[in-house]
């Protein structure tokens, strides 16, 4: 049995940009079929991931069947879905579970049927052999670092959290909180739930601004919530005075950054992540040995550097490869 998955500390971790160099060229996979179980399609992040799968599939000449649960918390529905999909028709399954455990039985039966399973983003399945995604905690850390660099004198900041108990929400929140508190100068005046919901985040932000007139910034666990918070900041006439950060890097977030509303977002490059994950699955199907954790890129995108990440796909890739190379 494998030790419990922890992408942050996994000794075998390999960076996405090193796949080709370390594993050699991609195998020929023409005509193969891959199954995808997504978290949901109601959130742009996951739709972009699906786009990535489709792009990758078109490039490599394979078919992907993409299924998604009916909502962000439909755990049992997602399980039924994956159970129904486990079968020899698929060379491998790419899954993004709703929670760490909710797909476990289907994963077990896929393993029993010798179908490779790749866990993509977010949830950490304990005994999974392959994980492709980024470090959720790091999302929050990056935003905290921005504040520390940008406001050397510190100030009051607040967090709008995702749904209570969800892994990504817990990790992102913890990453931001720990980093900003450790810096010593900042005061975290509020950390309240927005439940991934724009309306609730708007209301929460309004109340926080009301209570803490000296607030200098928000960190939100995803972009949807951040866009709600931006509106609350605008409604309170504090635009430019209060920085707002999201997470995910959705198109809407980019539009908002460009318009000068949203300060920034931690882009996890979902389209690219989809392509990378499919690449990993194809290599697995071809029998290659792949490290357990493949780290995907993330970057804090603000108005200053957005051109760098929002150019053509190739340009984006190049930029991210450079990032990876210059990372410590």
């Amino acid at each position, binding site marked *: 049995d494998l030790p419990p998955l922890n992408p942050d500390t996994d000794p075998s971790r390999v960076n996405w940009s090193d796949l080709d160099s370390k594993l050699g060229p991609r195998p020929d996979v023409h005509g193969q079929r891959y199954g995808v179980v997504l978290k949901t399609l*109601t959130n742009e992040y996951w739709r972009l991931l699906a786009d990535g799968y489709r792009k990758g599939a078109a490039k490599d000449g394979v078919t992907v069947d993409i299924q998604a649960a009916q909502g962000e918390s439909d755990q049992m529905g997602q399980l039924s879905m994956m159970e129904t999909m486990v079968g020899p028709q698929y060379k491998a399954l790419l899954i993004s579970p709703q929670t760490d455990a909710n797909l476990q039985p289907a994963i077990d039966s896929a393993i029993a049927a010798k179908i490779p399973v790749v866990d993509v983003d977010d949830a950490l399945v304990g005994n999974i052999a392959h994980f492709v995604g980024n470090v959720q905690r790091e999302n929050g850390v990056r935003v905290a670092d921005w504040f520390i660099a940008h406001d050397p004198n510190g100030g009051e900041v607040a967090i709008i959290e995702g749904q209570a108990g969800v892994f990504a929400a817990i990790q992102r929140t913890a990453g931001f909180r720990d980093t900003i508190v450790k810096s010593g100068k900042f005061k975290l005046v509020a950390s309240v739930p927005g439940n991934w919901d724009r309306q609730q985040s708007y*209301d929460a932000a309004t*109340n926080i601004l009301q*209570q803490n007139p000296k607030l200098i910034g928000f960190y939100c666990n995803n972009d949807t919530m951040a866009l709600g918070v931006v509106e609350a900041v605008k*409604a309170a006439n504090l635009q430019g005075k209060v920085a707002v950060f999201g997470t995910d890097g959705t198109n809407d977030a980019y539009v908002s950054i460009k318009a000068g509303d949203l300060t920034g977002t931690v882009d996890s490059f979902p389209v690219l992540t989809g392509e990378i994950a499919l690449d990993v699955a194809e290599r697995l199907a071809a029998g290659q040995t792949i490290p357990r954790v493949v780290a995907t890129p993330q970057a804090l995108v603000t108005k200053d550097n957005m051109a760098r990440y929002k150019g053509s796909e190739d340009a984006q890739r190049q930029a991210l490869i450079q990032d990876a190379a210059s990372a410590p």
Partner: protein
Amino acid sequence: MEASMSVSSAGGRRLPVRLNLRDAGTLFGLLAIAAVFALATPNFLSQHNLINILQQSSINACVALGMTLVIISGGIDLSVGPTAALSAVLTATMIVSGVPMPLAFAGGLLVGLACGFVNGALISIAGLQPFIVTLGTLSLYRALALIFTNGTPVLGLPHAFRALFNGTIGPLPIPVAIVAVVSLVAWFVLRKTPLGEYILAVGGNEEASRIAGVPIVRTKIATYMISGALAFLAAMILIGRLGAAEPVLGNLWELDAIAAAAIGGASLMGGKGSVVGTLLGAVVLGEMRNGLTLLNVQAFYQLLATGIIIIVAMLVDRFTRGAG
């Protein structure tokens, strides 16, 4: 008690005394919660924050008023959120693509009414259970909203549109004023029109109403259509505020609306409910969220407080009623 008496004195002598006492109970609960928060955080009672609470309660109040009518008629409408979403994405798409605003509003309103019509028809003509019908359309309308937009939010609402819902009239935010008007209309419909009487009668005893010649089918359909229309209106307030119409908006609105109506004294058995009570119920829920955020209560404990306060509000209310 005084306060509620004067609130409902507009109802004149024809409101049964029990209703007033019931509303007084809700008011008492509201004030008790407010007192706790006021002690814990001084900001709570600032004029600005109180208006804030009203503003944040306005969307729920709007939906809850429609829900109240539906509940009084002996039904329930779980599909308010998706109805709001569907009408919102349609209106927003039309506005963004340059359709004149009045036309876009008419279109969205029509969608809201149509959603209500389908609910009402399935319930009254086909005779299905309201809970299960609207559980079905909850999925159905949401799916339509998602398919229509392919899941992406509609952005770029023009400033003119947003100004419609974001300004203030004197100290009052426009959404609050809208809800005030809607409440008056709802109160008027319920107390002064045949439709209101029919709604109360159908919810109170459907068989007797049928024999008395109440147009059951039309009454029910009209009730669900009002609920649909108010969901549309709530959606307009929301997208005016957020600047985006998401196909997933309105998630769990039905629970908030039902909670507001129930805290306000509506009986899910039908035949009983009050406009004033529902408004107070919506404000109770609003002040709770506001107060908990001001106190920076952690997510898990907010959830805990929400549960406890719903139950305590019902208990306090019951206690007050018993004493009255």
